[in-house]
């Protein structure tokens, strides 16, 4: 078993636990923005796509990498834009008047 696997597993388990503790505190009010925000954060796979596309190891890998850049970057941009828009809509009665 590669040592990389163990260190990745280490990070994965800790992040999953931390994620569980943090996310369970998110108000049900914001469950839709939660989903769009986690999608936007998940779109960080764009960094892997950029490297695959930029390494030019084969024509196929470059093309697949570029398509992945398009798909994930659209997710990143779109996810942040819509989360931002949604959160702007959540106002209290007081904030509305001011």
């Amino acid at each position, binding site marked *: 078993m590669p040592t990389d696997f163990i260190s990745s597993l280490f990070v994965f388990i800790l992040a999953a636990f931390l994620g569980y503790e943090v996310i369970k505190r998110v108000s049900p009010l914001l469950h839709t923005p939660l989903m769009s925000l986690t999608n936007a954060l998940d779109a960080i796979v764009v960094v892997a796509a950029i490297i695959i596309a930029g390494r030019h190891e084969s024509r196929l890998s470059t093309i697949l990498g570029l398509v992945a850049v398009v798909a994930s970057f659209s997710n990143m941009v779109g996810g942040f834009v819509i989360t931002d828009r949604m959160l702007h809509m959540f*106002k209290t009665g007081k904030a509305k008047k001011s």
Partner: protein
Amino acid sequence: MTAISPQELIDFTYMLAAVGFILALKWLSSPVSAMRGVLIGEIASGVAVVATLFDPQVSQYRWILIALIVGAGIGVPLGMVKMTAVPQRTALSHAFGALSAALIGVAEYYVAAPNVPKFEMAEISLEVIIGSLTFTGSLIAAGKLQEVLPQRPITYKGQNFLSISVLTAAILLMVTLVVHPEYTHLFPVMIGVALIFGVMLVTPIGGADMPTVMSLLNSYAGFSAALLGFVLNSKVLVVAGALDGASGLILSVIMCKAMNRSFTNVLFGGFGQIHAAAAGAKEERAVRSATPEEAAAILSAASKVVIVPGYGMAVAQAQHKVRELYDILTKSGIEVKFAIHPVAGRMPGHMNVLLAEADIPYDKLIDMEDINGEFPQTDVALIIGANDVTNPAARTDASSPIYGMPILDVDKARTVMVIKRGMSAGFAGIDNPLYYLDKTLMLFGDAKGFVGSIVRELSGGGSHG
């Protein structure tokens, strides 16, 4: 100590990005700090992307920049959709996320093939299988939500057996590839089988089960990204994927609990099918109906009103009319709150977003657990386009298919008013005894039109109250 290499510097920014992601989610805990959360998420992602462009492995920027511009060109309009279209947009973004993770896995495979070490082969195969099935599954979900595909569950005999066989085939192909990585021709077959399984997974699910499916697909998309992090040994992907996966899983559990059902029941239950029999044995019973004038008179005499929105409100696009009703009642000193069931709508939190868009203050949007104690002190519970989540049979009738499901206790209010097109049963296909209570008034009509008529009565009548 030697100088820091560019690679180490990039890895350092990835670590900062991971911290930013965790803070982003932490600050999402309340609407007050949530904006700050999005900002830190944007900064973290932006820094990571820019740092990657300086990676020495990356040469020739032209196509990458074009791909980024195209991606942004697709992303911005998808971020600007109307709030009613948010569920299908979210399904589409699960699809895009899973697609990119799967494509990168495929590219990694073909770069290394046929000499892929066994362990890596297992990681790549699993990642590509989950990514592929999430891709097609999410596309089907998006199609159903956009109503390009039929929304009702599509079921047929032997469905579960066939679905499980297809999944087994994908896993057997994966095992074969791990043992014999030189059988490269099996790799595309495995992808094809996984793509088909994704379609089969979501096709039989529909309607009120969509929030659960959306959450599950969310977690699959996250876990495929985390697995990709294992394949590429990229810790930032592992962290982001773990967070996304955990989030989807938590939401799935909340949705399942809110329907009193298990995961397996949602995925393999064929909800609509089971309850067809229950709907058959329906007797004709008398209901009381009321006109907009009567409804307006009752509302204006109330001192506390709780509005229960459901998917029907979203379909009728009635949220802005509901806001007008909220305004006019609030102005005449009536306390108005909204009762939000966790599975109301088509994705977690759907009703909150629609009502917030219509400018209803979020402190008036109350969770099921918090509002249920208030119904006995409520004069009027006004139900707009919700059905099963208000069905008292879930509390009282052990033979009911939804028995045990947590519901909004609207029947404890002094008067119940239900805006509904007709007497048809809800998604679960079961009759709602609420409608036959003496305290219940049925307001037959389109949600938007009926609420509009009530608003006209209230503003025209003026001197009520």
